[in-house]
Every structure is written in structure tokens, then in C-alpha cells.
């Protein structure tokens, strides 16, 4: 059920958009929905960031993953995994965000007879995650050719690199293949691996199906059913210049694609997909391990009721004197 429900929802979304385009609701699906979705995305993202930001970071709690900066240079610090400076933190975050450093450490625990615990290398999640995120980003940026008059050189270069194998016509984008492969892997591991299946929620399957839907509708458009691509760019450019038009003859499949993207944008700020923003705010990663050098201030620090030395001595004065301990009051 937790797999089927999100699948039905995505299928329903496809049907809705397709039927809408067939029923001449292009203006709704091509103009109203995308505008609304982008607005919800941006506002939602900001609201979520505000919510996070409104809670302070009372303590400096980095997870240290290597030797700390020691009192003497003869003990070598791991400056990236246990950073003590801003530069180190920047490097750690950059590695984390760009190449998924922590996930790269991943291992797989197996219990053998003996009993013997074995920790094997497990890089597939890292690889699939990296493949998925990077191909998604490249595909997104590649789409800028539809968003810009006089397509800039960088975008063109990116496109030609992405299609450098020159397979078929239109040329096959490698990222299309990689994305579908990676999403499929990420889905399959949630079905096949017992631990992952057990922890998965509908909210884990839904974005996978949605993104797969987006990818497949895009692929269908580019390689198979074809849409009036000049018309598509006209529509997008109209939206971007706030003078939207609905050009004639864009195929319905385009509206399915656009609608699924819109749903993704709306869904994004209220879901786990916000890890895109949250990763930057994780106090175990974005702080330097320099607690003993530089005092961290807790904005809500408040005085607490303590048991003072005076009270302690009052409790034990006789015993202390008998044991020969110095006391403040005789």
C-alpha cells in the first residue's frame, strides 16, 4: 500500500494533465499552474528556511571524523574531517554537498558464523545518489536553453558534452540514461533490501515516481512522440517575460511534463526534498571543532539552580573536618 498509493497518485497526475490538455485547458496547465507552482516553491522554501533559522544553534556540536587540531604540530590534524577553521568547514561542506563525502564512507555490516561481523565496502548508494543528483542538476541547467534568448555558450557546451557519444537523432543525452537508471536503482533498493523497505514511507516512493514520471515524459517528448519545440520555447519565454501565450500545436505530453514539474515544485518545500537546503544548516557538519579555543554563545543560556560549595560544606562540614579537609567556615 505504501508503494501503490504514491504510484496511483502519480498516474492520476499524468491522467489529469493529459486530459486537461486534450480538453483545451492549455491556459490553465501552461500558465496558471506553473506560475502558482513557482510561487509556492519560492515562498515555501523561504518559509521553511525561516522556520529553521528562527531556532538558534545553542551548542557547537560537530561530528568529528578524524584527528582534532592538537596542542602540538607533531600530531597531524585531519583538517577537513575535523575542521578547526572556517576554511576547513567550507572544504568539509563542499565535499559533503558536491561529492557526498559521508555517504562515501558507507559500509555494509554482515553477520557470519563464528560469530563474525564483517564490514564490507558499500558504494552503490553513494554512486547512485551522486549519479542521480548530478544528472538531475545537469538536466535542469540544460533546460536553460528553453529559458534564454540567444542560448549562452556554457549551456551549449554542456549540451554537446552531454550528447558527445552522438547516438541516434535527436542525439541521446547521457544524463537522461543515467537519471532513469539511478532513480530506478533508488526505487529498487527500497523494494528489494529488507532494511530499506522496512523504513520506507509513501513520502519516499512518491518523489521517486514523480521524478521518474518527469524524466519519462521528457524522454518521450524528445525521442519519440515529439512536440512542437519552437512552440514550447515560445510558451516558456512568454511565462518568463510575464506575457504568457499558448502557442498552437504543442503536444499534450508537454503539458504532462510541465504539470509533473509543477507538482514537484509545490511538493518540494513541504517534504524531505528540503534536504537540499537543510544540509547546509546541519550543525554536526557546518561548524568548526574549535570549542576549547573559541567560546560558543547560547542565546537562551539561563542561570540554573546549582548546589553550591557552601551548601555542600554545610552538609559535610563535620565529616570533612574529621577527615582533615580544609573548610571555609569552622
Amino acid at each position, binding site marked *: 500500500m505504501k508503494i501503490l498509493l504514491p504510484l496511483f497518485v502519480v498516474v492520476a497526475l499524468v491522467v489529469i494533465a493529459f486530459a486537461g490538455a486534450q480538453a483545451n485547458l492549455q491556459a490553465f496547465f501552461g500558465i496558471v499552474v506553473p506560475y502558482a507552482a513557482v510561487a509556492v516553491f519560492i515562498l515555501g522554501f523561504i518559509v521553511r528556511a525561516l522556520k529553521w533559522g528562527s531556532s538558534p544553534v545553542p551548542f557547537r556540536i560537530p561530528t568529528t571524523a578524524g584527528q582534532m587540531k592538537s596542542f602540538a604540530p607533531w600530531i597531524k590534524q585531519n583538517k577537513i574531517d575535523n575542521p578547526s577553521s572556517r576554511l576547513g568547514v567550507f572544504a568539509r561542506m563542499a565535499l559533503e554537498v558536491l561529492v557526498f563525502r559521508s555517504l562515501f564512507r558507507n559500509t555494509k555490516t554482515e553477520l557470519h558464523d563464528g560469530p563474525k561481523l564483517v564490514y564490507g565496502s558499500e558504494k552503490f548508494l553513494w554512486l547512485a545518489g551522486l549519479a542521480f543528483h548530478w544528472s538531475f542538476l545537469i538536466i535542469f541547467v540544460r533546460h536553460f536553453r528553453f529559458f534564454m534568448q540567444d542560448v549562452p555558450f556554457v549551456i551549449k557546451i554542456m549540451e554537446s558534452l552531454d550528447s558527445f557519444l552522438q547516438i541516434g537523432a535527436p542525439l541521446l543525452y547521457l544524463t537522461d540514461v543515467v537519471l532513469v537508471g539511478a532513480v530506478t536503482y533508488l526505487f529498487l533498493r527500497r523494494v528489494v533490501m529488507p532494511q530499506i523497505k522496512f523504513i520506507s514511507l509513501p513520502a519516499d516512493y512518491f518523489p521517486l515516481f514523480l521524478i521518474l514520471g518527469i524524466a519519462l515524459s521528457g524522454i518521450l517528448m524528445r525521442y519519440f512522440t515529439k512536440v*512542437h519545440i519552437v512552440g514550447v520555447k515560445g510558451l516558456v519565454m512568454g511565462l518568463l517575460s510575464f506575457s504568457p501565450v499558448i502557442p498552437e500545436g504543442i503536444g499534450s505530453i508537454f503539458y504532462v511534463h510541465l504539470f509533473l514539474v509543477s507538482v514537484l515544485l509545490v511538493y518540494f518545500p513541504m517534504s524531505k526534498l528540503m534536504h537540499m537546503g537543510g544540509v547546509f544548516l546541519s550543525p554536526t557538519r557546518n561548524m568548526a571543532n574549535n570549542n576549547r579555543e573559541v567560546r560558543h554563545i547560547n542565546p537562551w543560556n539561563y542561570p540554573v539552580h546549582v548546589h553550591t560549595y557552601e551548601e555542600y560544606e554545610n552538609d559535610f562540614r563535620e565529616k570533612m573536618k574529621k577527615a582533615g579537609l580544609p573548610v571555609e567556615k569552622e
Partner: protein
Amino acid sequence: MKNAGTIVIVVVVGFVAFFGFPFYYNIGKANEAPKLKFDTPAILEWEKVNGKKECVEPKEFMRGEHMQLLNQWRDSVVRNGDRVYVNSQGRSFTMSFQNTCMNCHSNKKDFCDKCHNYLGVKPYCWGCHIAPKEKQS
């Protein structure tokens, strides 16, 4: 990043820088769909003889599938030596990029390049073929 204000500023700046790129890139640029020209001497001649402007296949088909068709022609000619194309109406054409396609569409700048530049797609036709001399009336 200690407070909400900083975070929101970072988020907004990030959005503006990244997602906003197309917006300010487009500022001051005319937003016009490409207009193709079908006024080469060869096309006008064809219109005079046949009473209409037409290609080897209908316009809608050519718009979406011309790249496949060109690939198909190339394979047919280069690999099989077969130079005759029979179209969906049963009419025959010589499969030749240079002598058939570019004969009519001798205005690369006002035909091919218009859409290809608009959409940022670089065809690899011109890696082998020499672009024709621009001809239009």
C-alpha cells in the same frame, strides 16, 4: 549563520543567482519566435511548377522528424548505396542532402540556423557538409 535573517538572505540570493539567471539574461532581448523564410529561387520555382510550397514530407512531420529522416537518408546512401526515397504519398526523391535538401533550402541562415540557434541545438551536418552559398530572392 546564526540567525534567520542571514539564512533567508542566503536563500534568496541563491535563488536569484541561480534560478533568476534566465530572467536577467533575457532582459532587453526581444522575445520572438523564429520566422523561417521559404523564398529561395528553387522554392519559388517549385511553387510556380507545382502550385504550392511543399517538402518531401508534410510540414508537421518535417518539423519533428527531420533529423531522423536525414539520418535515414545518410545510412541509406552511404551504407546501401540506395539513393531513391519514396515518401508517404508515393512520390520519389533523390536522397541527397546537398542536392535535394539544400537545393531548396539554400538559405541556411534564414532556415536551419533560425530554430537551431533559437533552441541552442548544434546539428552535426556541417561537420562534413559544406554550407551552401546563401541564395534567396
